């Protein structure tokens, strides 16, 4: 095994790419922060990092992330529990899934925009409906609500398979011992979910910590947060070094959360998610009253989401929301004429990043999970760096690193594709590693003993079994390629630009119609592609594989 040339080639190639697209840009950025005209200096950074307002922004970021993590996990659990335990009819489950997926597959600021329209002094809900005046929409509350709505699906998707996998005999056992349903939930179900809840919390925490678009629109002046401050430092004050320094401030909590999640929570799962599904509970694990309450709560959240997106759709179909509500297809005409190039660019980039990212994910995941080679752990860790870092840092690092020879990529599609692959491919890596942990090594050994080399074994045995992870990787890379903004806002160029950047630009330019139309288009495209991927997965589905959606969260 040690002298397997295929493995050696793959390891060397992956290391080369990781060094080029992860280590090199970050090192360049660090160099730019610490060196001024080739002289080492920390003066600028110290000034930024001791600024009262930046420190406040730092704590605000942590507070927001904490609240989003907590709130999102609770709502995610609510949905997951309802879906797994309420014996819902199939169509209702599908409806919930669709509603929950909406925020996950749309550009990050779409809920923020809808919030501004709905709340605030003249908000559709607060003023037109409730007659409230003088309501402020900017600040912690609305940023928090918007981020929770945007990110709770991640918690839902990680918790639902977990709940489904809890052997219902455990609950049945407790019930037979005389415990009430509530007691069973409290003493059996909930404790079994704790690692999953912790995991979901950390995922949401990290997502919120890195989000810059939502606070940019909603946080207002009294609640500055760090990613937005870093972005403003660069784009507003033209202070690349200061912005980079602020980004590095984010690095500390981001890495802490990542390491906690990776090395602590993941080792404390009591339940292995096999996806075989201990299935529906054989008894009614919740009372009719509780079921009603759960369903109403979920319905309320789902209705809010649907309302937001209906509003978005409406905004794309009227002349000017709030002023002229004549129906029109003008905005779609605009995006399909002037915006055609952007749509084409985005689809080409997403279409290329998707298979490359998927392939990268399973290849790297397979190597680190199954093969022994020097620097295996290091490779896994390095592959997670771009994923764990806030997008702003990654984007700036790429911009600086690849502008000049020897590796001149600025202005090409490759730089955006590379950014997506090495940032979002990490999801595929983790899905692959997780799946491989459930696949006994003896399958590969059996293949070897039957005469297959590692290449053949990978292709004919491992690959078909980890296809779900591959599809999950494809899905995530595609979704992010269509919706991400924080990193790529720095990487779009004269020749290649992206829909999300266009949406943000239209929003700041107040061309709400085209912004809404672009958003609707993105949602539709992503839904279609995800449906195709789901179909593809069913096509190749191996028995006992995980459902593809459950991996989008990770």
């Amino acid at each position, binding site marked *: 095994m040690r002298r397997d040339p295929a493995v050696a080639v793959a390891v060397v190639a992956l290391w080369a790419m990781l060094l080029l697209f992860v280590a090199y840009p970050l090192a360049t950025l660090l160099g730019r922060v610490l060196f001024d005209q080739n002289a080492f200096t920390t003066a600028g950074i110290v000034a930024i990092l001791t600024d009262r307002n930046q420190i406040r922004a730092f704590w605000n970021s942590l507070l927001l992330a904490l609240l989003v993590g907590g709130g999102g996990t609770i709502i995610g659990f609510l949905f997951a529990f309802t879906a797994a335990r309420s014996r819902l009819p199939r169509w209702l489950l599908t409806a919930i899934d669709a509603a929950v997926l909406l925020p996950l597959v749309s550009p990050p600021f779409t809920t923020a925009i809808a919030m501004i329209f709905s709340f605030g002094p003249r908000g559709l809900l607060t003023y037109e409906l409730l007659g409230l005046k003088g309501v402020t929409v900017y600040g912690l509350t609305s940023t928090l609500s918007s981020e929770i709505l945007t990110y709770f699906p991640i918690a839902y998707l990680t918790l639902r398979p977990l709940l489904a996998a809890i052997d219902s005999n455990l609950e049945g056992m407790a019930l037979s011992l005389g415990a009430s349903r509530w007691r069973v939930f409290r003493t059996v179900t909930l404790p079994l979910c704790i690692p999953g809840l912790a995991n979901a919390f950390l995922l949401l925490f990290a997502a919120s910590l890195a989000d810059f678009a939502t606070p940019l629109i909603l946080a207002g002046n009294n609640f500055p947060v760090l990613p937005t401050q870093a972005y403003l430092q660069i784009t507003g004050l*033209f202070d690349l070094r200061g912005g980079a320094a602020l980004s590095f401030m984010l690095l500390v909590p981001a890495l802490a959360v990542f390491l906690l999640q990776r090395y602590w929570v993941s080792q404390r799962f009591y339940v292995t998610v096999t996806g075989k599904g201990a299935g529906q509970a054989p008894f009614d694990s919740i009372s009719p009253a509780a079921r009603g309450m759960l369903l109403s709560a979920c319905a309320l959240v789902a209705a809010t989401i649907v309302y937001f997106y209906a509003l978005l759709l409406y905004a794309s179909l009227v002349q000017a929301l709030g002023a002229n509500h004549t129906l029109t297809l003008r905005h779609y005409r605009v995006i399909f004429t002037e915006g055609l190039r952007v749509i084409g660019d985005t689809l080409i980039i997403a279409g290329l990043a998707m298979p490359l990212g998927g392939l990268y994910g399973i290849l790297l995941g397979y190597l680190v999970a199954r093969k022994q080679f020097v620097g295996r752990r290091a490779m896994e860790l390095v592959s997670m760096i771009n994923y764990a870092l806030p997008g702003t840092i990654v984007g700036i690092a790429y911009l600086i690193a690849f502008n000049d020879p020897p590796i001149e990529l600025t202005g090409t599609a490759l730089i955006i594709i590379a950014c997506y692959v090495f940032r979002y491919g990490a999801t595929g890596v983790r899905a692959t590693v997780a799946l491989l942990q459930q696949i006994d090594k003896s399958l590969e050994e059996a293949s070897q003993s039957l005469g297959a080399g590692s290449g053949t074994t990978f292709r004919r045995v491992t*690959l078909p079994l980890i296809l779900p992870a591959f599809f999950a990787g494809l899905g995530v890379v595609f979704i992010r390629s269509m919706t991400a903004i924080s990193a790529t806002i720095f990487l779009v160029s*004269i020749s290649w630009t992206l829909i999300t950047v266009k949406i943000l630009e239209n929003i700041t330019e107040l061309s709400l119609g085209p912004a809404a139309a672009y958003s609707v288009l993105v949602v539709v495209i992503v839904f279609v592609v995800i449906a195709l991927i789901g179909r593809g997965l069913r096509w190749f589905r191996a028995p006992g594989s995980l459902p593809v959606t459950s991996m989008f969260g990770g």
Partner: protein
Amino acid sequence: MRIVTHWLRTIVALPLLVLALVSGPSAAADTVNVYSIWPENWARPMFEEFEKATGIKVNFVRFSSGEALARVIAEKSNPRVDVLFGGPVETFAAGINEGLFEPYKPTSFAKLPERFREASGQWTAIADDPLVFMTNDKFLKENNLKAPASWDDLLAAPYKNMLQMADARTSGTAVTRIFSILEVNGRDENRAFAYMKKLRPNVQLYTKSGGGGTLPVGLGQAGGGIFFIVDALDTKAKGYDVTISFPKEGIGTAAEGIALIKGAKNPELGKKLIDWATSPAMQNQFAKYKINFVPAHPEVALEPSLAAVIKGANIFPIDAAYAGANRKHVVERWVAEVLNP
């Protein structure tokens, strides 16, 4: 499983396709590359007119002034574009400090007033853009207010938490506004800041971009704000019921610039674009496309409806030398005392 194998081969073939598709900015002989700070719906028709007139294609992408400048700085050693188009002159002033521009005096240079050109030709103005007060009609009516006609009108109680205006860290609009306030207070910084601090409770949001507040004002989410006239008139044109007014004490105006990037790959084409944009050839087209900038070139007539709006308004230019010298500390003081009291 044969399907999988086949399909895998396709994936492996993709990187080759990537190489085929990946291309940098066009270096074709008849194309000039531009970062436009003007929104696409204004920049695009201008560039199309330019191509019609000269046969030179303009390959452009739109960024806000901050983004565009940050990008030009990042690309300094290997510029991707030839021209930076549009955006308030103070963005260009910041660019000069970074050594981003190649001095070029276009054909109209001599004809322009001094405040519309940098002495050595590092930038030249293509338009002028005065600030205005813009208020929501319904808001005024509900609160029995008249459109504000004085800076002090904005301090009135009904405006509490109902104004939106730009953030000085990111927006040229805001910097122009602050210097306007300084001017009407006789450049007495303490008096000016005292006013701004009094205004602070009425400000619902300092927006990142200069026009960020226009839509909320249009919708009535905010009662009013201070904006560039182009943004305000654009809001009105979209059908929102808003009123534009000017303070009797006066309000500032800022020039919009254009500059040649140092190290540009197509300097000759870039210069042709600058020549065209700074001349009546472009500025005469403003009216046709309902772009409500005030032309910078003295030979271009002001469009009548725009003239009607600014008729009688007390508009003064911001002194570039004074603003340039004080910009940094004024913005810092604003952040410290007004934004984060």
